[in-house]
């Protein structure tokens, strides 16, 4: 028997339903839904690639490269494919400057991006005017103009990047010509290939190591005698580092830090664009020495030509049978200075934000993927084969003023011939200026940065100090990556300091209070008409004492040294109106 009755559960007036608010329920489960089209796009991009969490940044690049931005739909699809939570992916995507995450309802960026370097050398060479001119001239539907931190081309300042094509000595006209030409990829310079490197005796040292003709202890002795130190900026003795890493239970890993982001520094790029295989040989010797299972080479995204060369040369090494396939894994940074800090770089290789780690434990013990890790800067490795070939003495003897060895000085600013100058450790700023052709015409040497943005600013009166690790300690200063930026009387020290602190504020990872809030407040204080010396000094002390990593610890060097050495500069009325 069938009978027409109302839906069960309530009567005609359905009084029993009076429970709850009875609002309409959601049409979907909680949160952002997956879109099929976006999923297919991402699956196509990731075809054949492993869904490993450490590759997240690589895959974000794939989306960014293909679409010029990363839509929320694609990002959501990437989460699905990689089985990663939305928050975990979003925090990584928004940490790095080179990813443009575009949410629902937001306008995607135009197809072409022009980045104008606004770091210190470019800044004194007219970056601001260039930026303003490009910005006012650009059609926002076609081109966007962004400020960007140091591109490692300070010898050709000011610099702009159109897509990935660099315009050296940039003028608005030159940049616009490139925009119109459609050129977007970096020029690849002529460099020494693997075959050429081998032809002149390259890889002989590595072969000796592998053949057992060069025992570990000998190598350590050579490294120690040569006095080779970490040339990324920290100056830790290389041989000692190898011993420490080897003392921890394997399996061990090695990383190469190619995140040369310190403003004023371009020596790593210099070597890799000319002779990449010498660095690789050094790396493979180091990896052999510490018995590393694998090498991860982290290269900053600001060096597209280098990335191209490295990918090509790694393949060449694999083909030549010098390394097994996959032994060296190239990882691409994504626009974050902090990833030059070794533990931040390791986090980035693991597919995360570049947050420096609290130490101890040091990465030599607990590094990449939790394993003992040997990390080296590019230049440090570059010297290794040469030292082992020519002997420790050859290298050590180069030093002057009590220092040991050779250094690659990135010299830029108000000098006639800026560039990488290979010169002894312990040399002075004045000597380097001379080697760089002297000051530009009509310019008087006033001040210099001995170690990029981090090492403080010193007056010309201290231009005869020997420059080496530790030699500037008593001036609250250091050489770091050996980036010398030279200023003249026309440069305002207050402007320089504000530029440097804005850089640190932009590049602070945001993890610890002293650096995150400290850099921000420091910029605000420095932009004031009158500097509050007492408060700035107190702030500096806490930033130095309590920041997790070197960024926050070194950031105050600029304003502390400025206050110490440029008192007469007084940073007073001339600062009015600046914001």
């Amino acid at each position, binding site marked *: 028997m069938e009978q*027409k009755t109302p839906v069960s559960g309530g009567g005609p007036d359905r009084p*029993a339903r009076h429970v709850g608010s009875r609002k309409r329920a959601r049409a979907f489960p909680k949160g952002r839904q997956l879109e099929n089209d976006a999923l297919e796009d991402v699956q196509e991009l990731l075809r054949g690639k492993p869904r490993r969490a450490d590759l997240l940044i690589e895959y974000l690049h794939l989306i960014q490269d293909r679409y010029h931005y990363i839509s929320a739909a694609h990002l959501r699809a990437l989460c699905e494919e990689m089985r990663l939570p939305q928050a975990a992916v979003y925090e990584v995507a928004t940490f790095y400057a080179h990813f443009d995450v575009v949410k629902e309802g937001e306008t995607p960026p135009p197809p072409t991006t022009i980045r104008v370097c606004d770091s210190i050398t470019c800044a004194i060479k007219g970056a601001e005017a260039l930026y303003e001119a490009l910005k006012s001239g650009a059609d926002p539907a076609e081109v966007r103009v962004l400020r960007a931190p140091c591109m490692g081309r300070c010898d050709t300042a000011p610099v702009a990047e159109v897509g990935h094509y660099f315009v050296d000595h940039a003028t608005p006209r030159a940049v616009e010509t490139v925009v119109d030409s459609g050129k977007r990829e970096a020029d690849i310079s002529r460099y020494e290939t693997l075959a050429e490197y081998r032809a002149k005796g390259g890889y002989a040292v590595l072969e000796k190591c592998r053949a057992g003709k060069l025992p570990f202890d000998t190598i350590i002795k050579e490294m120690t005698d040569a006095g080779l130190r970490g040339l990324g900026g920290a100056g830790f003795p290389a041989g000692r580092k190898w011993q420490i890493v080897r003392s921890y239970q394997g399996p061990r890993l090695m990383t190469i830090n190619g995140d040369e982001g310190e403003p004023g520094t371009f020596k790593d790029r210099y070597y890799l664009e000319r002779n990449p295989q010498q660095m690789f040989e050094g790396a493979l010797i180091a990896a052999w020495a510490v018995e590393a299972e694998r090498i991860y080479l982290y290269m900053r995204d600001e060096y597209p030509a280098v990335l191209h060369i490295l990918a090509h040369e790694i393949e060449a090494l694999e083909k030549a049978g010098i390394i097994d396939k996959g032994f060296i894994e190239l990882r691409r940074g994504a626009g974050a200075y902090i990833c030059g800090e070794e533990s931040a770089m390791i986090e980035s290789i693991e597919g995360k934000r570049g947050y420096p780690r609290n130490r101890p434990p040091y990465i030599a013990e607990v590094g990449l993927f939790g394993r003992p890790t040997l990390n080296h800067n590019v230049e440090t490795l570059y010297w290794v084969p040469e030292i082992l070939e020519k002997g420790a003495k050859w290298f050590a003897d180069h030093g002057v003023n009590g220092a040991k060895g050779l250094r690659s000085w990135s010299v830029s600013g108000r000098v006639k011939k800026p560039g990488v100058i290979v010169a002894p450790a312990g040399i002075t700023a004045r000597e380097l200026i001379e080697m760089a052709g002297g000051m530009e015409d009509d310019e008087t040497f006033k001040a210099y940065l001995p170690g990029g943005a981090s090492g403080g600013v010193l007056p010309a009166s201290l231009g005869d100090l020997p420059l080496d690790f530790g030699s500037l300690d008593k001036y609250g200063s250091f050489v770091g990556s050996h980036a010398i930026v030279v200023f003249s009387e026309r440069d305002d020290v207050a402007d320089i300091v504000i530029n440097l602190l804005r850089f640190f504020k932009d590049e602070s990872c945001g993890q610890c209070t002293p650096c995150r809030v400290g*850099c921000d407040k420091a910029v605000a204080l420095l932009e004031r008409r009158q500097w509050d010396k007492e408060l700035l000094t107190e702030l500096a002390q806490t930033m130095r004492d309590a920041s997790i990593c070197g960024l926050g610890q070194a950031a105050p060097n600029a304003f502390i040294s400025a206050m110490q050495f440029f008192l007469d500069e007084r940073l007073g009325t001339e600062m009015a109106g600046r914001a």
Partner: protein
Amino acid sequence: MTDQLLFTLDGKVVSARPGETIWQVAQREGIDIPHLCWLPQPGYRADGNCRACMVEIEGERVLAASCIRKPAPDMVVKTATDRALKARRMVMELLLADQPPHEDSPDRVSPFWHWAEVQHIETSRFPAHDIIKPDLSHPAMAVNLDACIDCGLCVRACREVQVNDVIGMAFRGIDARPVFDFDDPMGRSTCVACGECVQACPTGALMPKSIVDPITQHGTREVDREVHSVCPYCGVGCQLSYQIKDGKIAFVQGRDGYSNENRLCVKGRFGFDYVSNPQRLMKPLIRKPGLPKGVNVDPANPYTHFREASWDEALDFAAKGLAKVAEQHGNSAIAGFGSAKCTNEEAYLFQKLIRTRFRNNNVDHCTRLCHASSVAALIEGIGSGAVTATFNEVEHADVVMIIGANPTENHPVAATFFKQAAKRGAKLIVIDPRGQAMREYATYMLQFKPASDVALLNAIMHVIVEEGLYDVQYLQAFTENFESLKKHLTSYSPESVAETTGIDAKTIREVARTFGRAERAIIFWGMGISQHVHGTDNARCLIALSLMCGQVGRKGTGLHPLRGQNNVQGASDAGLIPMFYPDYADVKSESVHKKFEDLWKTKLSEKPGLTVVEIINAANAGEIKGMFIQGENPAMSDPDLDHARAGLAKLEHMVVQDIFLTETAMMADVILPSSAWPEKSGTVTNTNRQVQMGRKALALPGDTREDLWILVELAKRLGLPWTYKHPSEVFAEMKLAMPSLDNITWERLERESSVIYPCPAPDQPGEAVVFGDGFPTQTGRALLVPADVLPPAEVPDEDYPLVLMTGRQLEHWHTGAMTRRAGVLDALEPSPTASLNPRELARHGIKPGEQMRVTTRRGSIELTARADRAVQEGTIFIPFAYVEAAANILTNPQLDPIGKIPEYKYCAVKIGRAHGDEPHVPMPDINATASGL
């Protein structure tokens, strides 16, 4: 101790235990070091980012964060040097610069303000940042990032402690801030509202909305008092603390209980305002004569069908009615449904009342509807119905199988431990026809065809046998019947079941190997296993699988049916089961029978009583004529509701004791308004066998009474000589009947809040893992019981082509009586939904969000279509909490022959768009006063 190391702390040589940080040692030594991003609570990793806890270490260039830095031998640490103090103060001053003024803070008593005050930081010399607007999109929580200090505790709370993975720390530098998903408004994110972030936040940037002014966003966590208790919702049994202000629960904090370690879920944290819902029954009610019984009363206005009565009148009326039925139709015409929502003491008294006054065993409760089949299989196999290991043992497991359970929705806090295990590296095997949140953490997600459990599990065991992965020694020492099981399994090759189960043979083999090779494997299951006509067989397979691999009785191993209700374990232990007296004492056994007759000083029936569905059938058949129902809602929870409601409506006399006018109470002859959980004291037993103390926190509202008082008063009027005044007296009597409570006393529970049974001594903790040396069976061995594939009772056909599965959802408890009257829970899930795969919806021309109709041979309901990719095509999922579209109108009342549990997880349905016309509902073949009212 040898592992300890010595170092110097503020001039004194102190020792540190392995893994201890400087902060922890200092704390122990009575040195209070400020801390913001460090939360000294279980599960929280030190992160060392706020730098509020800096100390000086001799010989080091910079200061160290004491929360994360571990002392080394002979290290010299100074906590109070000028340098350290200055750094700490500067950190506070930097942070304070961007805080709202103290008096405008969302939490005026936050740890941040505490540490600012301690260090005398009242103002900041730094310029302030722009104000950040609040995010008030979530019904439960206010987000005021203006007060945020980027300490990341909320991220750790969400990602590492609860593993819900909704909060991240996005952007960089000064722009860094916590975000939900892709920086979405909290209320539109995937947030499950566990509130862990709120509990962890040291500034008030994340606060329960209940204690923040909705306009000004000023607030405080300051309260008048707190009361420690336990959550009334699911079987996890989280310990909590009611924060009471002005006599009301202002908010709820998790407490460090064994099963929850401070964690709560959305219900336990934000689901308590039901106690003051205006629909609360405040006066005893007696039915007005002549009105048809049915689900036909407005729960906000019972006076259309009921009149108020005094307690004396109502109790007399209730007692006389039951007595009269017994007199006229015999004692067997009476039955009682106790409740797994009530206390152990109440459950014990309830069954004692029915058994001693009416001399029958017709007393049951909702355990019948959830794990009766699991219990049947467990008792048959290993001689005990409770879990062999607490779910916390997952911490030690290397393989974790979760089958037919959706713990992120139904046991959310237990799920956090499972997800943590997976993150730690344990292999997680999730087997469920429906995809679920747990899949994101799973090594294997087997989304198999509904009801093919036995085939799949037999195939897994087939591989284990075939590849010799079973534990020969264990089988020989502790089990029997392996040979016959082995023989039985030969016909279940993975290839032979691939089609039935929808899982390819290779995957089955991999899963079998993973389980078979595990060092320590633990199995969790839920109602996807038990609620089938082959529920007992499903459980038998799991028991056999675990036993053949020797995965019972050791750390990190075991069988754990995740119990549903907060006290379903306790209510069952206390004897709310028709075939058992307390502690599963068989009513048929002569010695047992004698024991209880002696204890209770009265004659008892030796005949097992009727189970829940049987009682309803008997009511329909006119055999049961009087019922006493305490805190259960069979008019929503039983299968085939038209039939169930008709049975209840047919009763001559029904007494209901409850806090709301539930759908069952609507059909009562007399309603006794009772106490909500926070208004009484008593013990409950969770899925882990933890007996836990619930404490009274609120005064009884209106003319309501505590349940225990009502039971005693009713018993007295039924002629029983009861004098219980306090649950402790009942507990003392229970101990006489229940050896499981040995070494657990009321006083101990008051002191310790929780004790696991069995417990070896009054000063020892209970046993987390049992049966390491045999089983409480007659032989001391476990019995392996082969199971064959039995089809579901109703399979899809041309007319009814889809499979319906019913269950619960995170926000709503069971039939919704409490949760649909809790503001936050209602706001999150306000009305009924049917979840289907988007492709399935498209196939039927139904758009997500549209009203759709779902029909079975038993009835139709209309509800909102929800597109959910996790639901496989050909299936549909409906939660059963909603009276306006009660899923159980649709379900099939066919029972598992052994467990007597209905097949809630499988019946055939058809679907379509709701067009506004009236759907056809076949009439049940009974007097249909209850139908369709």
